[in-house]
């Protein structure tokens, strides 16, 4: 690697490079390989390659599988369409018009990111089920709607549409108004300027965000599991779950379904990448100009009502339902003043309770996952973006692949891989298997943040450090490290928040006797102690939102973040 030595970067073949690559192989490639092997060789679990493809033929010949695949795609499309219908008008009104309380609405639409979809789903169940809060307050029973296919899509739209809302706002902010104004000068009416200029320019960013929503929808476990099963609506994710947790266990079937799911995710992911790399107009154009927002005039009140409605169903309903459930002494007592109390919260916070243990497990797993993925992601990204070695193609693939691995697939892969009889040691049935699962699922966040950060830093900064006499390692530590640190901290906070509430992998691979926040909530809900579960849900939302916020504020104080 002469080039590497000449430019003075850490070359792509050093021991550190191979350590990172090896870890990623173990974390990502190893489980995926066993899904593929299991799909082909049904007897692999007994260290035998007998009857290749028989399981795959059986699974693919199963008409149920076709139905599940179709349901998955249909759900993805419905959620995508719903999110577009809700988020595009919201984004357009927010950016192009003078909307009162603009920042407040942005804040409202951040809330769904803080509520994991399964918790929001439970909130909606409490609200719309027979004798739920809606019926108690208005006499309307919404169970028929909720436990149906549109109901599943509805709840998922509410937890995903902010992705589209913020994408639309960002692209419109970057491209739309300015070019639209130019079109007005050349004779286009406002509507025509919007259709011919503003919308086409915003389309790539919009399409990419919709594909992200599609991927989120087909990978989601909690909502279809809690709502769809009662409607007889099975998707690939719940299908995989059924095959590995319900008797008779069908590992080959689970592997085949997993591969189908990975295929769909891969398609969504790469289409998204293609769109963004081929036509992204956000970076074109000259000096940024302040947006001249149009007045809404007579439309102000209807538009505000629209925003309030969206904020109400997306944030207020789930949060209030969770809180109301957590604060009731008994569910049968209903929403009566005398029925409210802090019982559930005290029970969770009492010394040695199951709830407190679960909380501590999840928080420590969250912190560990954040630290490991942060370090791994930053190093992998550094080698990929700045490295020179040929091995970086492999590393690139390994660090991008988890984007297309849904949690349920990672869980299946870990079960298959780490239960092989020939393994001398295995993390299976220890807390480490959860740590591995979380790291694999969440690695994409730090990688994405680090890639963006490294790309933003011009190579001349490194060159300047080298010219000033710093070696490659010193340059990494003194120059690049501090520059990417703020991005990495943000990514790690995100990883922490998501990992400490992760549901599906926790259900599937948690060692016997270990409970996490998510499995605690899920079990309490299934066993009927809903109040306790919701108290935990509320506590978890508070902690996983507050801790990152505190860290961010502390960093701002110390000027780590600009």
């Amino acid at each position, binding site marked *: 690697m002469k080039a590497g030595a000449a430019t003075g970067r850490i070359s792509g073949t050093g021991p550190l490079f191979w350590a990172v690559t090896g870890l990623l192989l173990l974390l990502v490639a190893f489980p995926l390989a066993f899904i593929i092997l299991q799909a082909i060789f049904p007897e692999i679990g007994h260290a035998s390659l007998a009857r290749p493809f028989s399981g795959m033929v059986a699974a693919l010949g199963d008409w149920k599988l076709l139905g599940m695949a179709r349901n998955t795609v249909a759900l993805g499309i419905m959620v995508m369409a719903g999110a577009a219908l809700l988020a595009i008008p919201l984004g357009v009104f927010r950016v192009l018009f003078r909307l009162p309380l603009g920042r407040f609405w942005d804040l409202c639409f951040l809330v769904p990111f803080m509520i994991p979809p399964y918790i929001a789903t439970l909130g909606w169940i409490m609200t719309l089920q027979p004798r739920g809060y809606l019926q108690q307050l208005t006499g309307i029973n919404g169970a028929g709607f909720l436990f149906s296919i549109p109901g599943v899509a509805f709840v998922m739209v509410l937890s995903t549409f902010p992705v589209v809302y913020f994408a639309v706002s960002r692209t419109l902010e970057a491209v739309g108004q300015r070019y639209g104004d130019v079109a007005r000068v*050349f004779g*286009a*009416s406002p509507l025509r300027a919007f259709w011919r200029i503003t919308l086409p320019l915003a389309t790539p960013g919009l399409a990419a965000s919709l594909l992200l929503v599609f991927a989120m929808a087909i990978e989601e476990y909690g909502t279809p599991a809690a709502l769809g099963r009662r409607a007889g609506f099975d998707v690939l994710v719940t299908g995989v779950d059924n095959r590995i947790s319900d008797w008779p266990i069908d590992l080959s079937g689970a592997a085949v379904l997993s591969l189908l799911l990975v295929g769909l995710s891969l398609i969504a992911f790469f289409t998204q990448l293609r769109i963004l790399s081929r036509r992204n107009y956000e970076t074109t154009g*000259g000096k940024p100009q302040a947006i001249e927002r149009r007045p809404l005039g007579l439309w102000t009140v209807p538009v505000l009502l629209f925003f309030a409605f969206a904020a109400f169903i997306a944030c207020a309903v789930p949060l209030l339902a969770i809180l109301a459930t957590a604060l009731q002494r008994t569910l049968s007592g209903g929403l009566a003043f005398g029925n409210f109390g802090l019982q559930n919260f005290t029970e969770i916070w009492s010394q040695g309770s199951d709830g407190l243990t679960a909380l501590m497990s999840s928080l420590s797993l969250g912190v560990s996952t954040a630290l490991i993925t942060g370090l791994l992601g930053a190093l992998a990204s550094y080698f990929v973006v700045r490295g020179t070695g040929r091995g970086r193609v492999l590393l690139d693939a390994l660090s991008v692949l988890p984007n297309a691995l849904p949690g349920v697939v990672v869980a299946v892969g870990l079960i298959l891989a780490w239960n092989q009889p020939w393994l001398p040691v295995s993390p299976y049935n220890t807390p480490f298997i959860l740590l591995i699962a979380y790291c694999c699922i969440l690695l994409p966040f730090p990688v994405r943040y680090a890639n963006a950060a490294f790309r933003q830093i011009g190579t001349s900064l490194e060159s300047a450090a080298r010219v000033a006499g710093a070696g490659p390692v010193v340059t990494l530590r003194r120059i690049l490290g501090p520059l990417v640190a703020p991005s990495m901290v943000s990514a790690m906070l995100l990883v922490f928040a998501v990992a400490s509430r992760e549901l599906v992998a926790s259900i599937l691979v948690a060692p016997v006797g270990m409970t996490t926040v998510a499995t605690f909530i899920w079990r309490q809900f299934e066993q009927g102690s809903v109040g306790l579960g919701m108290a935990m849900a509320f506590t978890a939302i508070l902690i996983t939102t507050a801790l990152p916020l505190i860290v961010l504020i502390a960093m701002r104080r110390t000027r780590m973040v600009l």
Partner: protein
Amino acid sequence: MSGISRRAEAAEAVTVRNVSQDYGTSRVLNGVDFALPTGQVMALLGPSGCGKTTLLRLVAGLLAPSIGSVGIAGNLVADASTGFFLPPEKRGLGMVFQDYALWPHMTIGENVAFPLEMRGIGRSERETRVEAALQRVGLGGFGARRPSDLSGGQQQRVAIARAIVAEPGLVLFDEPLSNLDRELREQLVGEIGELVATLGLTALYVTHDQAEAFSLADSVAVMRGGHIVQADSPEQLVAQPATPDVAEFLKLGTVVEVEAHGDGWWLPGAVEALLPRSLGPAGTDDAVLLLTRSALRPVASGEGQLQAVVRRSQFRGDHHLLTLVLPRAGEIELSLTSDRRAQPGERLGLALVPEALRWFARSRPVPVRLSEPAL
């Protein structure tokens, strides 16, 4: 003069009447007032942040004035007193933007065709006119390319083609060349000038480059801090700057404040008078004096009215620019042109050319009128 004033109001392509513009609490334009006759080019010249773009956006209809009115081709298009406002698409303009603003998702041809399309012109005519406009800016056959494939100068040419393709009654240019390097700028100034002349365009041309303004415009409006300080022909501006500010901005020479004592005009702290009293305005003790470059002629040391010492000498291609101080008449720096290089520290005599002196009253923006033969 009288020819223009006798024409109907419709002969004015643009009339801006007493326009002020506020952004929040800050007043960005303050009582701007001017008229642009049809077929003429007016340059808006001023330093960064003086409100040039804001004024252009007001004319284009991208902004409504807080006070005052705007008219285009004799029709009122915006009037703050009645709230009347005609949106930009109804004003029939062409505009060239500082950052080109070509739509990145359309080809060059589609970009240039857009104004024609908005005017409802059929496809075949559109195609011929687009090609003709592209030919005119030297980009014939570029129609199928994308804006991102072109260089900055080519992109700006496309933007010009887009602005003129529909033959609008008024074209607005917002610093169209400021993003280009000097050579390209000089070339494009020439091309725009030719285009303006052959098409007989009426144009408002915003720039902060004096050479650009002087070479393109029939009249130049010098802007300072949100208002027009002086609007005149380029020749008139140089000959009769309205204020010391204008003179300084146009780099016409050295501006100094002088006081009258006894029979001389003195710089503060001098041991010798700068000029005899009779050369300045009568009836006042203080004034602002513009020493234009042609007001001082270098002569041999000991000759002339003033004695100077050379600080610096810079070669400027066809002349030397000398920076001088007058050791006895006050520590001011003067610059003047000379045919020969001078050494720092060298002594020079300066001969005064009284006709080339410009006098202004202190802190009053109108020049003090001197009776011609007095000099």
